[in-house]
């Protein structure tokens, strides 16, 4: 009796995971693939459409615009994030006072909901009386259409997202910086290396694992871009901030195109995995 119990116990303990896996991961993935071949508004019966959804996807201009927008967001957000976070981490890693205060201040937006940050920045970005435009005007510059100029709107959202996440990456870089052995810097000091040389030749290569992690985390985060454009711009102006997830959301919950939006989801998920694999190939180095 006790022996059978002992044998069964581990399976009992992992059963919550297995049930969850089957119900909310395995089944949905399979169902998603099935959905891609169907047209379905969730109320009526499912209708088999062969590759109809896939064909539609390839000719769907708006979807490609949303993919382009998402990549535009990433290409501004990630470099900006890495440069500023690394710089701030490097500053914090010096022998300075109030380190805890600075760290806590940078980290504040990280804990707050993206909804709060977006509502707040919507006001800061406001064209007429936003804090940013008032500052620009008082400095003698003209107003910028942060959220109403199609060329700038996505850049503005990327800047805001950077502001929100920066604190986390400062901390991650700070942890990374502290793993670099002191002897390396001492040896470089003997050779008369400048601060900048040490940073480029020693620090940056040594924190490659952190760099890689930051790129992956912010890539995955960036591909999930949704609530910011949802609240701020609704995807506009002229679809310039329509992100892929926002488009998938709209297809599913505004038009009830379940089959088609599942197709978009599957395609987009593959794209994400592909990008992450490519990043892994080119950024990750053994040290």
């Amino acid at each position, binding site marked *: 009796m006790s022996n059978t119990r002992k*044998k069964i*116990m*581990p399976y009992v*303990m*992992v059963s*919550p*995971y*297995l049930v*969850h896996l089957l119900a*909310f*991961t395995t*089944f*949905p*993935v399979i*169902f*998603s693939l099935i*959905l891609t071949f169907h047209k379905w508004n969730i109320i009526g019966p499912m209708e088999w459409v062969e590759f109809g959804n896939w064909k539609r996807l390839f000719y769907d201009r708006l979807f490609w615009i949303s993919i382009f927008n998402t990549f535009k967001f990433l290409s501004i957000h990630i470099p900006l994030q890495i440069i500023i976070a690394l710089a701030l981490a490097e*500053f*914090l890693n*010096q022998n*300075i006072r109030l380190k805890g205060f*600075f760290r*806590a*201040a*940078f*980290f*504040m937006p990280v*804990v*707050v*909901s993206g*909804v*709060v940050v977006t*509502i*707040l*920045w919507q*006001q*800061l970005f406001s064209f007429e*009386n936003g*804090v940013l435009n008032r500052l620009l005007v008082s400095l003698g510059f003209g107003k910028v259409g942060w959220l109403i100029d199609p060329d700038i709107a996505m850049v503005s959202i990327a800047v805001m997202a950077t*502001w929100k996440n920066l604190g*986390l990456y400062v*901390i*991650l870089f700070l942890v990374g910086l502290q793993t670099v052995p002191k002897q390396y810097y001492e040896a470089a000091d003997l050779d008369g290396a400048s601060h900048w040389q040490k940073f480029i030749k020693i620090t940056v290569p040594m924190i490659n694992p*952190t760099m890689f992690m930051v790129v992956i*985390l912010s890539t*995955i985060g960036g*591909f999930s871009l*949704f*609530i910011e454009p949802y*609240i701020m711009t*609704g995807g506009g102006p002229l679809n310039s901030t329509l992100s892929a997830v926002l488009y*998938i*959301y709209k297809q*599913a919950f505004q038009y009830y195109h*379940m089959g088609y939006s*599942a197709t978009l*989801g599957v395609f*987009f*998920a593959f794209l*994400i995995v592909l990008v992450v694999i490519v990043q892994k190939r080119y950024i990750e180095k053994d040290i």
Partner: protein
Amino acid sequence: MRVLKKILLYTLLSGAAITFIYPFFWMIMASLSPEADISSLVLFPSKLTLSNYSTMVSKIPIGRALFNSLFVSSVNTGLSLIFSSMVGYALSRMEFKGRNLIFMIIIFTMTLPFQITLIPNYIIMVKLHWVDTYLSLTIPFLINTFAILMFRQAFKSLPQALIDAARIDGCGELRIIFFILWPNIKPTIITVGILAFMGSWNEVLWPLIVIREEQFMTLPQLVTLFVVGGRAESQLGVKLASAVFLAAPIIIAYLFFQKHFIQSMASTGLKD
């Protein structure tokens, strides 16, 4: 030269700190100021008023949403701590067939983007009639693969003698986990707890999808729909008041447990 460098360093850091703190300060002040003052607000309004908050309370069931968020986040955090501990314990401390397979499946599913399961999971909620109930906000979040891995790691690092001694005393496996081992891995529990709570508290896409009835809406969802849906009637002060209300609980918790928050979030990067 050295002094100059120091001054430059502090200037840059202070500039950055202001960039992060000032917007929050502005938001709080704007939410407390008369509507007419917001467009020119820099530091303090001409007079402080709570009218934006009273307007907000009269327009949306924000108290109910606060309760929903607290309830859902607490249930998700509590139960996912329990379930993840059990799975993590089995994976690290018990021998059984399929253990490595399960571990590999967990690693694999973590790389799976949520975009692929979003639509089918919504359909599951519809078919189970869980839409507009608390079930859709809790059940899918009771298992958290990241938490499982954290617990697996934590349990692995404990000495076997601890478990053996408890077994000799006649403890069952569940007693061992929650009464013998848990007190020894408090940092992990705090980390997983904070991450689960924050994740649940700040989640907004999923509630937007599965909840349509106001009485079940979570706080971020209600605030989002209030701001986007035009019920705020483009009154900036009221919008900002709802944002402050949404931010306040987490910011207060953060001010008290700042170190724990930072450590927890930093550990999200240390998966491998």
